[in-house]
Protein backbone atom coordinates (compact mmCIF):
# COMPACT_ATOMS: atom_id res chain seq x y z
CA UNK A 1 0.00 0.00 0.00
CA UNK A 2 1.23 3.55 -0.84
CA UNK A 3 1.99 6.41 1.48
CA UNK A 4 -0.84 8.40 3.06
CA UNK A 5 -1.02 11.90 4.51
CA UNK A 6 -1.02 11.95 8.32
CA UNK A 7 -4.43 12.91 9.62
CA UNK A 8 -3.19 15.83 11.75
CA UNK A 9 -2.19 17.64 8.55
CA UNK A 10 -5.72 17.36 7.18
CA UNK A 11 -6.67 19.98 9.80
CA UNK A 12 -3.86 22.25 8.58
CA UNK A 13 -5.06 21.97 4.97
CA UNK A 14 -8.66 22.73 6.03
CA UNK A 15 -7.44 25.79 7.98
CA UNK A 16 -5.26 27.00 5.09
CA UNK A 17 -8.20 26.70 2.69
CA UNK A 18 -10.32 28.59 5.24
CA UNK A 19 -7.85 31.49 5.22
CA UNK A 20 -7.75 31.46 1.41
CA UNK A 21 -11.56 31.44 1.16
CA UNK A 22 -11.67 34.44 3.53
CA UNK A 23 -8.82 36.33 1.80
CA UNK A 24 -9.82 36.01 -1.86
CA UNK A 25 -13.13 37.96 -1.57
CA UNK A 26 -11.18 40.67 0.29
CA UNK A 27 -8.88 41.12 -2.70
CA UNK A 28 -11.55 40.53 -5.38
CA UNK A 29 -15.00 41.68 -4.06
CA UNK A 30 -17.84 39.45 -5.20
CA UNK A 31 -20.55 42.06 -4.68
CA UNK A 32 -23.01 39.82 -2.83
CA UNK A 33 -26.04 42.05 -2.04
CA UNK A 34 -26.36 43.22 1.59
CA UNK A 35 -29.91 43.27 2.99
CA UNK A 36 -31.16 45.56 5.76
CA UNK A 37 -32.55 43.35 8.52
CA UNK A 38 -35.94 44.37 10.12
CA UNK A 39 -34.19 44.39 13.52
CA UNK A 40 -31.67 46.86 12.09
CA UNK A 41 -34.54 49.16 11.15
CA UNK A 42 -35.96 48.84 14.68
CA UNK A 43 -32.59 49.76 16.19
CA UNK A 44 -32.10 52.67 13.78
CA UNK A 45 -35.57 54.07 14.49
CA UNK A 46 -35.12 53.63 18.23
CA UNK A 47 -32.01 55.82 18.26
CA UNK A 48 -33.60 58.38 15.96
CA UNK A 49 -36.69 58.62 18.18
CA UNK A 50 -34.90 59.32 21.47
CA UNK A 51 -36.25 62.66 22.75
CA UNK A 52 -33.87 65.61 22.48
CA UNK A 53 -31.70 66.14 25.54
CA UNK A 54 -31.56 62.41 26.35
CA UNK A 55 -28.46 60.79 27.82
CA UNK A 56 -27.24 57.53 26.27
CA UNK A 57 -25.16 55.14 28.38
CA UNK A 58 -22.87 52.92 26.29
CA UNK A 59 -21.47 49.97 28.25
CA UNK A 60 -18.56 48.27 26.47
CA UNK A 61 -17.74 44.78 27.69
CA UNK A 62 -15.62 43.35 24.89
CA UNK A 63 -12.77 44.26 22.59
CA UNK A 64 -12.95 42.26 19.41
CA UNK A 65 -11.90 44.77 16.81
CA UNK A 66 -12.97 42.98 13.65
CA UNK A 67 -16.29 41.69 14.87
CA UNK A 68 -18.22 43.19 17.79
CA UNK A 69 -16.30 46.44 17.89
CA UNK A 70 -17.27 47.22 14.29
CA UNK A 71 -20.91 46.90 15.34
CA UNK A 72 -20.24 49.14 18.34
CA UNK A 73 -18.60 51.71 16.07
CA UNK A 74 -21.59 51.64 13.69
CA UNK A 75 -23.99 52.26 16.61
CA UNK A 76 -21.70 54.99 17.99
CA UNK A 77 -21.71 56.69 14.58
CA UNK A 78 -25.50 56.97 14.54
CA UNK A 79 -25.62 58.22 18.14
CA UNK A 80 -22.81 60.70 17.49
CA UNK A 81 -24.67 62.30 14.59
CA UNK A 82 -27.30 63.34 17.13
CA UNK A 83 -24.69 64.21 19.78
CA UNK A 84 -22.96 66.54 17.29
CA UNK A 85 -26.35 68.11 16.55
CA UNK A 86 -26.71 68.86 20.27
CA UNK A 87 -29.68 66.52 20.60
CA UNK A 88 -28.15 63.68 22.65
CA UNK A 89 -25.42 63.20 25.25
CA UNK A 90 -23.18 60.19 25.58
CA UNK A 91 -21.64 58.47 28.60
CA UNK A 92 -19.31 55.52 27.98
CA UNK A 93 -18.15 52.96 30.52
CA UNK A 94 -16.53 49.55 30.57
CA UNK A 95 -16.61 46.78 33.19
CA UNK A 96 -13.65 44.79 31.88
CA UNK A 97 -10.10 45.68 30.91
CA UNK A 98 -10.30 44.44 27.31
CA UNK A 99 -12.09 47.40 25.71
CA UNK A 100 -9.63 49.89 27.26
CA UNK A 101 -6.94 48.49 24.97
CA UNK A 102 -8.91 49.43 21.86
CA UNK A 103 -10.54 52.64 23.05
CA UNK A 104 -7.92 55.02 21.64
CA UNK A 105 -8.21 53.45 18.20
CA UNK A 106 -12.01 53.61 18.44
CA UNK A 107 -11.90 57.27 19.48
CA UNK A 108 -9.69 58.05 16.45
CA UNK A 109 -12.09 56.20 14.14
CA UNK A 110 -15.09 58.05 15.58
CA UNK A 111 -13.29 61.43 15.61
CA UNK A 112 -14.48 62.39 19.08
CA UNK A 113 -11.94 65.22 19.26
CA UNK A 114 -14.39 67.81 17.91
CA UNK A 115 -16.88 67.21 20.73
CA UNK A 116 -16.94 69.13 23.98
CA UNK A 117 -15.74 66.65 26.59
CA UNK A 118 -17.60 66.81 29.88
CA UNK A 119 -20.61 68.52 28.32
CA UNK A 120 -21.44 66.41 25.26
CA UNK A 121 -19.78 63.17 26.26
CA UNK A 122 -17.96 61.54 29.17
CA UNK A 123 -15.78 58.45 29.29
CA UNK A 124 -16.07 56.88 32.73
CA UNK A 125 -13.42 54.25 31.98
CA UNK A 126 -13.15 51.03 33.90
CA UNK A 127 -15.68 50.16 36.57
CA UNK A 128 -14.66 46.60 37.49
CA UNK A 129 -17.15 44.05 38.70
CA UNK A 130 -19.08 42.94 35.60
CA UNK A 131 -22.73 42.61 36.60
CA UNK A 132 -22.10 44.22 39.99
CA UNK A 133 -20.68 47.24 38.13
CA UNK A 134 -23.79 47.42 35.94
CA UNK A 135 -25.99 47.26 39.03
CA UNK A 136 -23.96 49.98 40.73
CA UNK A 137 -24.12 52.30 37.72
CA UNK A 138 -27.85 51.69 37.33
CA UNK A 139 -28.51 52.59 40.97
CA UNK A 140 -25.91 55.35 41.66
CA UNK A 141 -23.12 56.05 39.19
CA UNK A 142 -21.43 58.58 41.48
CA UNK A 143 -21.08 55.93 44.18
CA UNK A 144 -19.72 53.43 41.63
CA UNK A 145 -16.92 55.75 40.49
CA UNK A 146 -15.72 59.10 41.69
CA UNK A 147 -13.59 60.11 38.70
CA UNK A 148 -13.72 59.63 34.94
CA UNK A 149 -11.09 57.70 32.99
CA UNK A 150 -8.78 60.73 32.91
CA UNK A 151 -8.95 61.34 36.66
CA UNK A 152 -11.36 64.28 36.58
CA UNK A 153 -13.86 64.16 39.48
CA UNK A 154 -17.36 63.43 38.20
CA UNK A 155 -18.63 66.41 40.18
CA UNK A 156 -16.64 68.71 37.84
CA UNK A 157 -18.24 67.31 34.65
CA UNK A 158 -21.47 69.15 33.74
CA UNK A 159 -22.98 66.11 32.00
CA UNK A 160 -22.55 63.97 35.11
CA UNK A 161 -24.60 66.45 37.15
CA UNK A 162 -27.57 65.24 35.10
CA UNK A 163 -26.74 61.54 35.34
CA UNK A 164 -27.09 59.81 38.69
CA UNK A 165 -29.00 56.60 37.99
CA UNK A 166 -30.76 54.71 35.21
CA UNK A 167 -33.80 56.95 35.74
CA UNK A 168 -31.84 59.82 34.14
CA UNK A 169 -31.09 57.87 30.96
CA UNK A 170 -32.92 57.81 27.63
CA UNK A 171 -31.17 54.71 26.27
CA UNK A 172 -28.73 52.02 27.39
CA UNK A 173 -26.55 50.20 24.87
CA UNK A 174 -24.38 47.26 25.91
CA UNK A 175 -21.68 45.95 23.60
CA UNK A 176 -20.83 42.34 24.37
CA UNK A 177 -20.33 38.83 23.00
CA UNK A 178 -21.69 36.51 25.63
CA UNK A 179 -24.85 35.74 27.60
CA UNK A 180 -27.26 38.71 27.50
CA UNK A 181 -28.48 37.93 31.03
CA UNK A 182 -26.43 40.47 33.08
CA UNK A 183 -27.40 43.68 31.22
CA UNK A 184 -30.99 42.45 30.91
CA UNK A 185 -31.10 41.88 34.68
CA UNK A 186 -29.58 45.23 35.59
CA UNK A 187 -30.73 47.59 32.81
CA UNK A 188 -33.77 45.79 31.39
CA UNK A 189 -37.39 46.33 32.36
CA UNK A 190 -36.68 49.64 34.11
CA UNK A 191 -38.50 51.89 31.68
CA UNK A 192 -35.37 52.72 29.66
CA UNK A 193 -34.93 51.18 26.18
CA UNK A 194 -32.12 48.63 26.01
CA UNK A 195 -30.05 47.83 22.90
CA UNK A 196 -27.64 44.93 22.88
CA UNK A 197 -24.72 44.61 20.49
CA UNK A 198 -23.97 40.93 20.77
CA UNK A 199 -22.52 37.96 18.89
CA UNK A 200 -24.41 36.21 16.10
CA UNK A 201 -24.46 33.02 18.15
CA UNK A 202 -26.29 34.77 20.99
CA UNK A 203 -29.40 35.64 18.95
CA UNK A 204 -31.26 32.59 20.37
CA UNK A 205 -30.30 33.77 23.87
CA UNK A 206 -31.54 37.31 23.19
CA UNK A 207 -34.84 36.34 21.55
CA UNK A 208 -36.72 35.54 24.80
CA UNK A 209 -35.78 39.02 26.05
CA UNK A 210 -36.85 40.59 22.76
CA UNK A 211 -40.18 38.77 22.91
CA UNK A 212 -40.66 39.88 26.52
CA UNK A 213 -39.85 43.51 25.69
CA UNK A 214 -36.71 43.62 27.84
CA UNK A 215 -34.40 44.15 24.83
CA UNK A 216 -35.86 46.66 22.37
CA UNK A 217 -33.32 46.00 19.59
CA UNK A 218 -30.06 44.16 18.96
CA UNK A 219 -27.15 44.39 16.55
CA UNK A 220 -24.87 41.53 15.54
CA UNK A 221 -21.52 41.67 13.70
CA UNK A 222 -21.08 40.75 10.06
CA UNK A 223 -23.99 40.93 7.68
CA UNK A 224 -26.41 42.72 10.02
CA UNK A 225 -23.83 45.42 10.73
CA UNK A 226 -23.08 45.65 6.99
CA UNK A 227 -26.81 46.31 6.44
CA UNK A 228 -26.73 48.89 9.22
CA UNK A 229 -23.77 50.66 7.60
CA UNK A 230 -25.69 50.66 4.30
CA UNK A 231 -28.70 52.20 6.07
CA UNK A 232 -26.50 54.91 7.58
CA UNK A 233 -24.76 55.53 4.26
CA UNK A 234 -21.41 55.22 6.01
CA UNK A 235 -19.69 52.04 4.88
CA UNK A 236 -17.17 50.58 7.33
CA UNK A 237 -15.21 47.41 7.92
CA UNK A 238 -18.32 45.23 8.31
CA UNK A 239 -19.20 45.97 4.68
CA UNK A 240 -15.68 45.01 3.64
CA UNK A 241 -16.14 41.68 5.42
CA UNK A 242 -19.62 40.92 4.03
CA UNK A 243 -18.44 39.01 0.94
CA UNK A 244 -15.82 37.09 2.86
CA UNK A 245 -18.30 36.19 5.58
CA UNK A 246 -20.73 34.78 3.01
CA UNK A 247 -18.05 32.67 1.32
CA UNK A 248 -16.62 31.39 4.61
CA UNK A 249 -20.09 30.36 5.79
CA UNK A 250 -20.49 28.41 2.52
CA UNK A 251 -17.04 26.86 3.07
CA UNK A 252 -17.95 25.90 6.65
CA UNK A 253 -21.09 24.13 5.40
CA UNK A 254 -19.11 22.28 2.72
CA UNK A 255 -16.51 21.34 5.30
CA UNK A 256 -19.10 19.97 7.73
CA UNK A 257 -20.77 17.93 5.00
CA UNK A 258 -17.47 16.80 3.46
CA UNK A 259 -15.84 15.70 6.72
CA UNK A 260 -18.91 13.69 7.70
CA UNK A 261 -18.99 11.95 4.30
CA UNK A 262 -15.25 11.19 4.47
CA UNK A 263 -15.64 9.86 8.02
CA UNK A 264 -18.36 7.40 6.95
CA UNK A 265 -16.49 6.45 3.78
CA UNK A 266 -13.35 5.68 5.80
CA UNK A 267 -15.38 3.68 8.30
CA UNK A 268 -16.74 1.53 5.48
CA UNK A 269 -13.27 1.03 4.03
CA UNK A 270 -12.17 -0.47 7.34
Amino acid sequence: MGKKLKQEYEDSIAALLFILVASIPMAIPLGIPVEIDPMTMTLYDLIEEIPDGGIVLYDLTILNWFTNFQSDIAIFKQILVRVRAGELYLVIMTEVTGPIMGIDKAWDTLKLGDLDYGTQWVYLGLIPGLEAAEAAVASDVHAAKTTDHYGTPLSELPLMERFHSIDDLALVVTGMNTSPDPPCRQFGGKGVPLILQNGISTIPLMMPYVEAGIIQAYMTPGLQTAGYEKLQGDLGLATSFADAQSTTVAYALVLMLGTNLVYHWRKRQK
Partner: protein
Amino acid sequence: MIDWESIMFPIITLMCWSILYRHSFLWEIVQHSIVGLSLALILKFMLDFIMGNMITPIFQGSIYPAIIGLTLGLITWLRLAKSTRDFSYISFAIMTGIGTAICAIGAVGPQILAQLNVASWVAGTPVTNFNNFIMWLSTVGTIAYFIFTYKRGGLAGSVFTGLNGLAYIGRVFMMLAFGTTLGALIAEMAIMGVTGYAYYYVKPPGIYILAIGLIILIFDISRRWETFFYTPEE
Protein backbone atom coordinates in the same frame (compact mmCIF):
# COMPACT_ATOMS: atom_id res chain seq x y z
CA MET B 1 5.51 58.20 9.76
CA ILE B 2 5.72 54.43 9.97
CA ASP B 3 2.37 52.71 10.54
CA TRP B 4 3.60 50.12 13.04
CA GLU B 5 0.12 48.70 13.50
CA SER B 6 -0.10 47.66 9.84
CA ILE B 7 3.29 45.96 10.14
CA MET B 8 3.00 44.32 13.55
CA PHE B 9 -0.58 43.14 13.19
CA PRO B 10 0.04 40.78 10.22
CA ILE B 11 3.32 39.54 11.75
CA ILE B 12 1.70 38.69 15.10
CA THR B 13 -1.35 37.11 13.41
CA LEU B 14 0.89 35.01 11.16
CA MET B 15 2.88 33.87 14.21
CA CYS B 16 -0.42 32.87 15.89
CA TRP B 17 -1.59 31.01 12.81
CA SER B 18 1.71 29.10 12.61
CA ILE B 19 0.27 26.67 15.19
CA LEU B 20 -2.14 25.50 12.47
CA TYR B 21 0.90 24.09 10.69
CA ARG B 22 3.11 22.96 13.54
CA HIS B 23 4.40 23.88 16.98
CA SER B 24 7.28 26.29 16.46
CA PHE B 25 9.31 28.92 18.31
CA LEU B 26 7.24 31.62 16.54
CA TRP B 27 4.13 30.31 18.27
CA GLU B 28 5.95 30.12 21.61
CA ILE B 29 7.12 33.74 21.35
CA VAL B 30 3.71 35.15 20.47
CA GLN B 31 1.88 32.98 23.01
CA HIS B 32 4.03 34.10 25.93
CA SER B 33 4.16 37.72 24.75
CA ILE B 34 0.38 38.03 24.49
CA VAL B 35 -0.26 36.40 27.87
CA GLY B 36 2.45 38.52 29.53
CA LEU B 37 1.38 41.80 27.95
CA SER B 38 -2.30 41.17 28.68
CA LEU B 39 -1.56 40.44 32.33
CA ALA B 40 0.65 43.50 32.61
CA LEU B 41 -2.05 45.74 31.13
CA ILE B 42 -4.76 44.28 33.37
CA LEU B 43 -2.52 44.81 36.41
CA LYS B 44 -1.87 48.41 35.34
CA PHE B 45 -5.59 49.15 34.82
CA MET B 46 -6.52 47.60 38.14
CA LEU B 47 -3.80 49.47 40.03
CA ASP B 48 -4.98 52.71 38.40
CA PHE B 49 -8.52 51.95 39.55
CA ILE B 50 -7.45 51.16 43.11
CA MET B 51 -5.38 54.33 43.24
CA GLY B 52 -8.10 56.57 41.79
CA ASN B 53 -11.11 55.10 43.55
CA MET B 54 -9.77 53.77 46.85
CA ILE B 55 -6.44 55.31 47.88
CA THR B 56 -7.14 58.86 46.68
CA PRO B 57 -10.65 59.05 48.22
CA ILE B 58 -9.20 57.99 51.59
CA PHE B 59 -6.91 61.03 51.53
CA GLN B 60 -9.84 63.20 50.46
CA GLY B 61 -11.96 62.15 53.43
CA SER B 62 -14.28 59.61 51.83
CA ILE B 63 -13.02 56.84 54.06
CA TYR B 64 -15.60 54.10 54.59
CA PRO B 65 -16.42 52.75 51.06
CA ALA B 66 -12.74 52.74 50.17
CA ILE B 67 -11.68 51.05 53.40
CA ILE B 68 -14.30 48.31 53.00
CA GLY B 69 -13.13 47.64 49.44
CA LEU B 70 -9.46 47.68 50.34
CA THR B 71 -9.97 45.45 53.38
CA LEU B 72 -11.89 42.85 51.41
CA GLY B 73 -9.22 42.93 48.73
CA LEU B 74 -6.36 42.55 51.19
CA ILE B 75 -8.12 39.68 52.98
CA THR B 76 -8.06 37.66 49.72
CA TRP B 77 -4.25 37.79 49.89
CA LEU B 78 -4.37 35.77 53.09
CA ARG B 79 -4.70 32.67 50.96
CA LEU B 80 -1.05 33.12 49.95
CA ALA B 81 -0.06 31.56 53.30
CA LYS B 82 -1.31 28.12 54.25
CA SER B 83 -1.93 29.10 57.88
CA THR B 84 -4.18 32.06 56.99
CA ARG B 85 -5.84 30.61 53.87
CA ASP B 86 -9.20 29.98 55.55
CA PHE B 87 -9.64 33.69 56.36
CA SER B 88 -9.57 34.53 52.65
CA TYR B 89 -12.91 32.76 52.26
CA ILE B 90 -14.54 35.64 54.15
CA SER B 91 -13.95 37.97 51.20
CA PHE B 92 -15.04 35.40 48.68
CA ALA B 93 -18.18 34.59 50.68
CA ILE B 94 -19.15 38.26 50.98
CA MET B 95 -18.52 39.00 47.30
CA THR B 96 -20.26 35.80 46.14
CA GLY B 97 -23.21 36.54 48.41
CA ILE B 98 -23.53 40.11 47.18
CA GLY B 99 -23.09 38.98 43.55
CA THR B 100 -25.78 36.33 43.90
CA ALA B 101 -28.13 38.80 45.55
CA ILE B 102 -27.59 41.34 42.75
CA CYS B 103 -28.27 38.65 40.13
CA ALA B 104 -31.32 37.32 41.96
CA ILE B 105 -32.89 40.74 42.44
CA GLY B 106 -32.32 41.60 38.80
CA ALA B 107 -33.52 38.21 37.57
CA VAL B 108 -37.01 38.38 39.03
CA GLY B 109 -38.45 40.81 36.48
CA PRO B 110 -36.64 40.24 33.15
CA GLN B 111 -35.72 36.59 33.56
CA ILE B 112 -38.60 34.99 35.43
CA LEU B 113 -41.79 37.08 35.39
CA ALA B 114 -41.32 38.47 31.87
CA GLN B 115 -40.65 34.99 30.45
CA LEU B 116 -43.74 33.50 32.08
CA ASN B 117 -45.95 36.34 30.91
CA VAL B 118 -47.54 35.00 27.72
CA ALA B 119 -50.02 37.60 26.51
CA SER B 120 -52.39 35.10 24.92
CA TRP B 121 -52.29 31.48 23.79
CA VAL B 122 -54.66 32.00 20.90
CA ALA B 123 -54.40 35.61 19.81
CA GLY B 124 -51.26 35.33 17.68
CA THR B 125 -50.37 33.19 14.70
CA PRO B 126 -49.96 29.40 15.26
CA VAL B 127 -46.19 29.80 14.95
CA THR B 128 -46.16 32.52 17.65
CA ASN B 129 -48.30 30.36 19.90
CA PHE B 130 -45.94 27.44 19.41
CA ASN B 131 -42.94 29.69 20.14
CA ASN B 132 -44.64 30.98 23.29
CA PHE B 133 -45.34 27.44 24.43
CA ILE B 134 -41.72 26.38 23.80
CA MET B 135 -40.46 29.39 25.77
CA TRP B 136 -42.85 28.71 28.63
CA LEU B 137 -42.00 25.01 28.74
CA SER B 138 -38.25 25.59 28.60
CA THR B 139 -38.40 28.23 31.36
CA VAL B 140 -40.49 26.09 33.70
CA GLY B 141 -38.54 22.93 32.81
CA THR B 142 -35.16 24.55 33.47
CA ILE B 143 -36.33 25.97 36.80
CA ALA B 144 -37.66 22.50 37.68
CA TYR B 145 -34.31 20.94 36.80
CA PHE B 146 -32.45 23.07 39.33
CA ILE B 147 -35.07 22.91 42.07
CA PHE B 148 -37.01 19.65 41.75
CA THR B 149 -34.51 17.01 40.68
CA TYR B 150 -35.08 14.41 43.37
CA LYS B 151 -33.73 10.89 43.47
CA ARG B 152 -36.30 8.19 42.88
CA GLY B 153 -37.58 6.48 46.01
CA GLY B 154 -38.44 7.85 49.39
CA LEU B 155 -41.21 10.25 50.23
CA ALA B 156 -39.73 13.21 48.35
CA GLY B 157 -39.12 11.03 45.28
CA SER B 158 -42.71 9.82 45.13
CA VAL B 159 -44.13 13.29 45.69
CA PHE B 160 -41.94 14.90 43.05
CA THR B 161 -42.01 12.15 40.39
CA GLY B 162 -44.02 14.35 38.04
CA LEU B 163 -41.68 17.27 38.57
CA ASN B 164 -38.74 14.97 37.78
CA GLY B 165 -40.27 14.52 34.33
CA LEU B 166 -40.48 18.28 33.93
CA ALA B 167 -36.87 18.55 35.08
CA TYR B 168 -35.90 16.01 32.39
CA ILE B 169 -37.56 18.22 29.77
CA GLY B 170 -35.60 21.15 31.20
CA ARG B 171 -32.40 19.18 30.84
CA VAL B 172 -33.15 18.46 27.17
CA PHE B 173 -33.78 22.15 26.55
CA MET B 174 -30.51 23.06 28.24
CA MET B 175 -28.61 20.50 26.15
CA LEU B 176 -30.13 21.96 22.98
CA ALA B 177 -29.41 25.52 24.08
CA PHE B 178 -25.81 24.89 25.15
CA GLY B 179 -25.04 22.78 22.08
CA THR B 180 -26.39 25.24 19.53
CA THR B 181 -24.85 28.20 21.33
CA LEU B 182 -21.41 26.61 21.54
CA GLY B 183 -21.52 25.43 17.92
CA ALA B 184 -22.65 28.82 16.67
CA LEU B 185 -20.10 30.64 18.82
CA ILE B 186 -17.17 28.58 17.53
CA ALA B 187 -18.36 28.98 13.93
CA GLU B 188 -18.81 32.72 14.45
CA MET B 189 -15.40 33.22 16.05
CA ALA B 190 -13.71 31.21 13.30
CA ILE B 191 -15.55 32.85 10.42
CA MET B 192 -15.54 36.42 11.71
CA GLY B 193 -12.06 36.17 13.21
CA VAL B 194 -10.39 34.76 10.12
CA THR B 195 -12.30 37.17 7.88
CA GLY B 196 -11.16 40.13 9.95
CA TYR B 197 -7.52 39.15 10.16
CA ALA B 198 -7.42 38.32 6.45
CA TYR B 199 -8.30 42.00 5.84
CA TYR B 200 -4.72 42.97 6.64
CA TYR B 201 -3.22 40.44 4.23
CA VAL B 202 -4.73 41.77 1.03
CA LYS B 203 -3.07 45.19 1.15
CA PRO B 204 0.48 46.43 1.79
CA PRO B 205 2.42 45.88 3.98
CA GLY B 206 0.48 42.78 5.08
CA ILE B 207 0.60 41.24 1.61
CA TYR B 208 4.45 41.38 1.63
CA ILE B 209 4.58 39.87 5.10
CA LEU B 210 2.22 37.13 3.94
CA ALA B 211 4.48 36.48 0.94
CA ILE B 212 7.51 36.10 3.23
CA GLY B 213 5.47 33.79 5.48
CA LEU B 214 4.43 31.66 2.51
CA ILE B 215 8.05 31.35 1.31
CA ILE B 216 9.10 30.18 4.78
CA LEU B 217 6.16 27.76 4.84
CA ILE B 218 6.95 26.29 1.40
CA PHE B 219 10.63 25.95 2.31
CA ASP B 220 9.76 24.15 5.55
CA ILE B 221 7.24 21.87 3.84
CA SER B 222 9.80 20.85 1.20
CA ARG B 223 12.41 20.24 3.92
CA ARG B 224 10.09 18.06 5.98
CA TRP B 225 8.09 16.56 3.10
CA GLU B 226 8.67 12.92 4.08
CA THR B 227 7.43 13.45 7.64
CA PHE B 228 3.91 14.35 6.45
CA PHE B 229 3.20 10.83 5.26
CA TYR B 230 3.00 7.36 6.71
CA THR B 231 2.77 3.89 5.24
CA PRO B 232 -0.34 2.06 6.47
CA GLU B 233 0.14 -1.41 7.83
CA GLU B 234 -1.26 -4.24 5.65
